[in-house]
């Protein structure tokens, strides 16, 4: 399956500059949010949000076509 990913802030530096933090990732069926973060090699504390606003934990099983936004935790500037 494929999920589109938007990596915000400093996380976008893990992708080539021209990507501006956006990429599409192919994962095995049944892959979880944790698998996605491992695939992207994200080691920071992050919050993951789906395009419907739902914020799943790492055990959440992704679906083909999911749009995933990933944010760092910054300065108390976040709330889940």
């Amino acid at each position, binding site marked *: 399956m494929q999920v589109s990913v938007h990596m915000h802030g400093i996380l976008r530096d893990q992708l080539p500059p021209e990507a501006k933090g956006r990429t599409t990732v192919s994962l095995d069926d049944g892959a979880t949010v944790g698998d996605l973060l491992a695939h992207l090699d994200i080691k920071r504390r992050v919050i993951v949000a789906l395009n419907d606003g739902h914020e799943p934990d790492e055990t959440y099983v992704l679906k083909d076509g999911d749009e995933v936004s990933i944010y760092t935790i910054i300065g108390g500037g*976040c709330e889940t």
Partner: protein
Amino acid sequence: MPHGYNGKILHVNLTTGELTIEEPEEKFYRKYMGGSAMGVYYLLKEMPAGVDPLGPDNILALCLSVMTGTPISGQSRMTAVAKSPLTGGIGDSQCGGFFPAEMKFAGFDGIIVKGRAEKPVYLWIHDGRAELRDAGHLWGRVTGEVEATLREELGDDKIEVLQVGPAGEKGVRFAAIINKSNRANGRTGMGAVMGSKNLKAVVVRGTHKPTVADKAALSELARWGATHFPESDVAGLGKYGTAETTGAQQRAGGLPTYNFTSGVFDRWEAIDGTTMYDTILRGADQGKQDRYGRDTCYGCTIRCKRVVEIKEGPYQVDPKYGGPEYETTSTFGNYCGVSDLPAIAKANEICNKYGMDTISCGATIAWAMECFEEELITVEDTGGIELRYGNAEAMVKMTEMIAKREGFGDVLAEGSARAAAKIGRGTDEYLITSKNQETPAHMPHTKRTLAVIYAVNPFGADHQSHEHDPSYRFYPERMAQLGLHDPQPKLALNAEMVRYAMITQHLYSAMDSINVCQFVFGSAWQLYGPDQLVKAAQAVTGWNVSLYELMQVGERRLNMLRAFNAREGIGREADTLPKKFFDRPLKGGKTDGYVLDRDEWRRAVDTYYAMCGWDVETGYPTRPKLEALGIGWVADELGLA
């Protein structure tokens, strides 16, 4: 020989022209450490209650700390304290930059300014010597010009200049004190106080760096910071500036939009930190913005400050005036419904050029915009300007008019609360002020402890006075150092969250006295945690200070600020939140429908006073609490039984 500090406080009487040097004992420095605690000490000791904030009897204290100017990130900070022309109570504001370190090198730990000069003057301090000089030729001129003129006149490129711009001269009630033409003691109108004294600038130059008790220990801490910074949670603040947080706020529904009508702004990506980095930072056109578009404070590894350069188009921006912070992109941006980043950068430039707080300025304009949309303010008031949400041109124009006190800008230069009182027509319903100070860009609707701290903070709504709610959950290791082990569910405002707010407030209060940057040191996401703040203070001073002792400094300072207000008759009745936060549910996004509950908030404030050991009826500090903090003299000053 003290380590970290000079042992000298300069007293300046502008009325008489007399300059005297005080040499306080070591125990004074250990008890108050510097910054805000040191400043309010002089206000309580040497200033009577009831003075006119813009009159000669107000005292302006500019205080460093025992750590300023030493080789560790985050120490180049200076606090300005005076009675505030905005709040009517205590005023308090911190700046960074290079001025604080240079002032330390020049030989003083604090400057206590009294009186009013007959004509404009500036204070020139160099290697322990101080003199007042004529500033008639500098009066009325903008900050960048004054810097350049003074560098040329004094023949030294290494001077640091702290000054008021034309807004401070004209008594704009949220005027800032500016250094480097782009750093500000922004909040509570300290620039208006300095301007009212005819003190145009303080210029410093020194060659005597403070000694450090344990160089090896401080170097080790600095090395640890440099090594861990790239993987730390402040790495993004370094590269993309504080506006990196815009997206996280938007996701949470905590991005104040249309004067706190909503927590989401649909065009947020146009004004966030990465967009700024890609488009308007100096050097961005050549991909060299990391080199030319980022700036720092003395000795700091993070480099979070922005340098914007725009050479073409309607909003050209001179890089000497820096670039907008998150608070600035918010107040001129989402608060006003403006998504034109160059226009926001222009408003920021005007504020730094004329010397104004970007938070109060942008938020005051946003309030006026909402009143305009509600037809409570009309073009008759504004002189024909369509002050509507999203009108970038009107926002920039109004910023300039406030700075110059022209037309409707003269009304808004009083701050939104006084403007509402003058205009009437129900415009006060739309205020977002606490103690007349406009609320910064963090929303108590979604981070509930802000509802307590915005209200009880002695100098009005402030977002840098405690740790925000989510950190309790996300940073258990550092929270444990403060005895905080029990994070609560989202949106809770129970006793444990009040305890969390108060304890972290004491740490932040200590940091505003020991004068360290709250992005570098802190209780959660910052580069260094509380244990490392203790190590740094020990290494610099040689004192065997503990976290307990630092927390007491913070609590002592907070009680002194409250005592200053109590002496002015300002207590619980002033600890309010904007009506709008209780009466008007947010619209849209994840926080759609969110509103604060008055009863829950009142209970939380009661709990807070009781935990602080204050009188729950009046909100005043009590004698037992003041004596427990070793400042019984403050209770005497208040005449407490």
